[in-house]
């Protein structure tokens, strides 16, 4: 860009005319409302592409949401399948014949999980699921299992529904054993899919990954049902010989809805 060296008089004249022109433009725009007209024109001019873009965007968003919903449904189905297959594998691993691998309910007379109290499960250490009552049982305490996997025991029975207290509930106890002959009475921890038991003597060995079965000593759960797997062993700080065994339950309440269950008298 070059710099012109102008004489002072020309500069003065140019400045004077510049301000006159600026003033005239400001005055005429004010007089004829040119600003408002121009702004209205600009908004109108940009309105068409704006509408087109927002329509394209909303259609794209709708398409995305639809796709997300489809994928979420697919994920849920796959998660369900994984859970069922996992149980099937556990059952085969422990040489148990899983009575019926078909978890989905298909007959009206079958007992199945109708609901799961998720709110109390997450907040208030109250672990409950509800199963239907097709045979209209009126009273009694029944052990409930999903195939060979223990769920818990019935607590309150009404004409159309039974409340089942899960093993992970802090008020629930169960007598369990490993294949090595280690016995203990496990108690619900209040944490999801977790029970724990104490080992006073180390006469029988156990390691992480050991599977626990019901002993049948408690008179409620039939012997030989699969409970869970030893997840963690921690030593007590007060008693040198005492160890706390954390057992992860195989039954997952989040995957339980509409799954067939068995009542054991």
């Amino acid at each position, binding site marked *: 860009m*070059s710099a012109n*060296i102008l004489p002072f008089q020309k500069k003065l004249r*140019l400045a004077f005319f510049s301000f006159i022109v600026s003033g005239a433009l*400001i005055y005429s*725009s004010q007089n004829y409302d*040119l600003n408002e007209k121009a702004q209205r024109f*600009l908004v109108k001019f940009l309105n068409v592409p*704006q509408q087109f873009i927002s329509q394209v965007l909303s259609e794209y968003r709708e398409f995305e949401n639809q796709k997300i919903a489809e994928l979420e449904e697919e994920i849920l189905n796959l998660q369900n399948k994984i859970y069922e297959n996992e149980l099937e594998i556990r059952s085969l691993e422990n040489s148990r014949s899983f009575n019926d691998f078909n978890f989905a309910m298909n007959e009206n007379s079958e007992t199945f999980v109708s609901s799961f109290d998720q709110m109390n499960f997450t907040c208030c250490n109250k672990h409950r699921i509800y199963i239907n009552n097709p045979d209209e049982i009126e009273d009694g305490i029944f052990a409930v299992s999903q195939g060979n996997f223990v769920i818990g025991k019935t607590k309150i029975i009404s004409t159309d529904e039974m409340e089942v207290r899960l093993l992970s509930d802090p008020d629930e106890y169960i007598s369990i054993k490993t294949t090595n002959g280690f016995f203990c009475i496990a108690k619900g921890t209040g944490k999801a899919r977790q029970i724990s038991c104490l080992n006073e003597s180390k006469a029988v060995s156990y390691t992480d990954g050991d599977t626990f079965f019901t002993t049948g000593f408690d008179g409620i759960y039939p012997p030989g049902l699969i409970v869970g797997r030893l997840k963690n062993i921690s030593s007590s700080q007060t008693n040198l010989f005492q160890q706390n065994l954390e057992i992860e339950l195989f039954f997952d309440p989040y995957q339980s809805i509409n799954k067939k269950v068995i009542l054991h008298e």
Partner: protein
Amino acid sequence: MNEVFRYLSLGLLIILNQIMLATNLWAISPDIFLVHTLFFTTFVKKIPNIYFFIFNGFVIDLFFSNISMPYTITYTLIGLYLNFSNLKWIQRSLLEQIILIISVSLFLNIILFLTNDFADGMGARIFINPLLNSIIWSVIFINQRQKWLKNI
């Protein structure tokens, strides 16, 4: 930069500025019209006529101000300064250039806010804008300095 390109770029900047206003980006972005002016003080050989600056400012005011004053007056002053100056804009020191950019941006934004009723959050633009404009100029300066030194 020929005349047609100059006016075409102004039209595109008006559309861009309107989009920035609609998306609330205007408050935190540099003044694209001032940056545009800085660009053609750097890349064109001959300074445009002073009346071009006045017309430029007037057109911007028509679309973005309630009264045709802030940009018209600022551009008149910029035009006068560039046309009357004995030195080329790029021959001045960076400090001098930045001081001028900050003063012009401050002046422009203050009049803009005095003559228009922008949203409260837009008030921050008075301080952010001069800073952003000077940063952009510094970037141009650092990138082009070597080339200018060869040509001067």
